[in-house]
């Protein structure tokens, strides 16, 4: 009997608590941004996107060591990386954060028509080179414009340089083969 009245009282009381919460929210400031008319960046109280917003990816080529972790983590295979191994004595410049690099990253393509913004690549990256940005307005009339090659975009390696390192590696391979065939 006591439980019954307590239950009824709780039922009414909790409903009232819920109503207080909703009426409180009724008079709060709305968070919606009227996007095409108002840019989120322009709206007061919206300094920028939230820190965990997931939009267009950015790759800092000075930080990338070509480990391919991001491409392997990508569930939709939108990242394709080509690397060229460096010959001894001609190592690529070290990472901006100071780590060693053994690979020349000759191509780093992200196909944003495929990207699903899952952010798994940023978690896989050991150097923090690939990050999510707050940029989201990058639609295009041509879908090939959405395939971003960050090597070209940041001009981290010119075409001649790529050809040169490839040539060097090929020579190095040949020398190695020769050494293997005719040991001294």
């Amino acid at each position: 009997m006591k439980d019954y009245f307590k239950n009824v009282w709780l039922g009414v009381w909790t409903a009232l608590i819920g109503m207080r919460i909703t009426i409180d929210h009724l008079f709060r400031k709305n968070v919606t941004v009227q996007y095409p008319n108002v840019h989120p960046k322009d709206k007061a109280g919206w300094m920028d996107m939230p820190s965990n917003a997931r939009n267009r990816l950015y790759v800092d080529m000075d930080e990338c060591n070509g480990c391919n972790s991001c491409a392997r983590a990508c569930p939709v295979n939108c990242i394709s990386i080509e690397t060229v191994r460096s010959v001894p004595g001609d190592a690529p410049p070290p990472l901006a954060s100071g780590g060693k690099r053994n690979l020349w990253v000759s191509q780093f393509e992200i196909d944003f028509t495929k990207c699903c913004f899952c952010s798994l690549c940023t978690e896989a990256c050991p150097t923090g080179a690939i990050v999510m940005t707050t940029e989201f307005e990058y639609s295009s009339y041509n879908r090939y414009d959405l395939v971003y090659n960050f090597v070209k975009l940041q001009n981290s390696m010119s075409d001649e340089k790529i050809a040169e390192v490839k040539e060097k590696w090929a020579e190095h391979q040949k020398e190695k083969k020769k050494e293997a065939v005719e040991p001294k």
Partner: protein
Amino acid sequence: MEEANFVFNMIGENWIAFAIISLLPMIFLLAYALIAILGELKISAFIQERLGPMRTGPWGIIQPVAEVVKLLQKEDITPDSANKPLFNLAPFIMFAASYAGFAVIPFSSYFVPSGINLGLFFLLAVGSLGIIGLLMGGWASNNKYSLLGGLRAVAQIVSYEIPAAMVILTIAVMAGSLDLQEIIRQQSGWFWNWFVFGGSGGWIKIIFLPFSFIMCIIYIIASLAETNRTPFDIPEGESELVAGYHTEYSGMKFAMFFFAEYANMFIVSAIITIIFFGGWNSPFGDFMGGPIWGVFWFVSKAFVFVFLQIWLRWTLPRLRVDQLMYVSWKVLLPFSFVCFLALSLLVMLK
């Protein structure tokens, strides 16, 4: 006072007057439906800290017009395997039942479409008429969700009619009349004469205040269930039954169901206003009294309860079927019996 109706006073009791009287609530209902749809959209949006519709008109205020136009021009689909006569009849019965309730609603001391002596009983009786439309639509759709929705709706409405009837019985005892105008007239004066505060009378009514408050709450809960609004919307629970009894309806016929639901919302709000909150009486004695202000007071009081219904919809989650029955039979009914006895005692002491 004689049955006052300003239309009869103006043009006499003839056919035109009857036509005008029967159409006036319809005009009100159309305007009200637009406001209520907008209110539902905007209040739900603001409660969730959204903006709601913003594109149609300034701040989206003509969104309901757009919705109505959309519904009117949609294709009117009748499923192949549905029972066509009953399928087409159901929305009309639903709407007719809702609109019938407006026949006795006193909008002002000088306007009530039909001032019959049994207004309160009429509202109770007509309220149970819509069930048939529900059941008909649910069965004729030949869809398992519709049928389940219809059955649930009937089980729910039939059980919640009993506490509601108990409350109405109590009001009949307190007012000594079933005439809605008479009930309202007894609550004239300041707001403490309203039946929610125990009606007019001496200070002894303070002892009985909790009972009349509980009665009011019981009626609000029961009326929510009778209009199938959240938290009692199990007949059309989207997550379980798609849309319940009107799953198969589209276009104009869906609009009629929709319209009937909103009309029902207003009718129960009007009943709460009439029986507990003094109808068209001004809350402050003679301040802003009179028949024209009466319309204002009546409509604004009723809109407060429409707002309450919308507010509750976005606050409380849906009840389970067994909880629904528990609330009706094991909570509302015993409480209403006790309150009925207590308030009858108050009437005897007066």
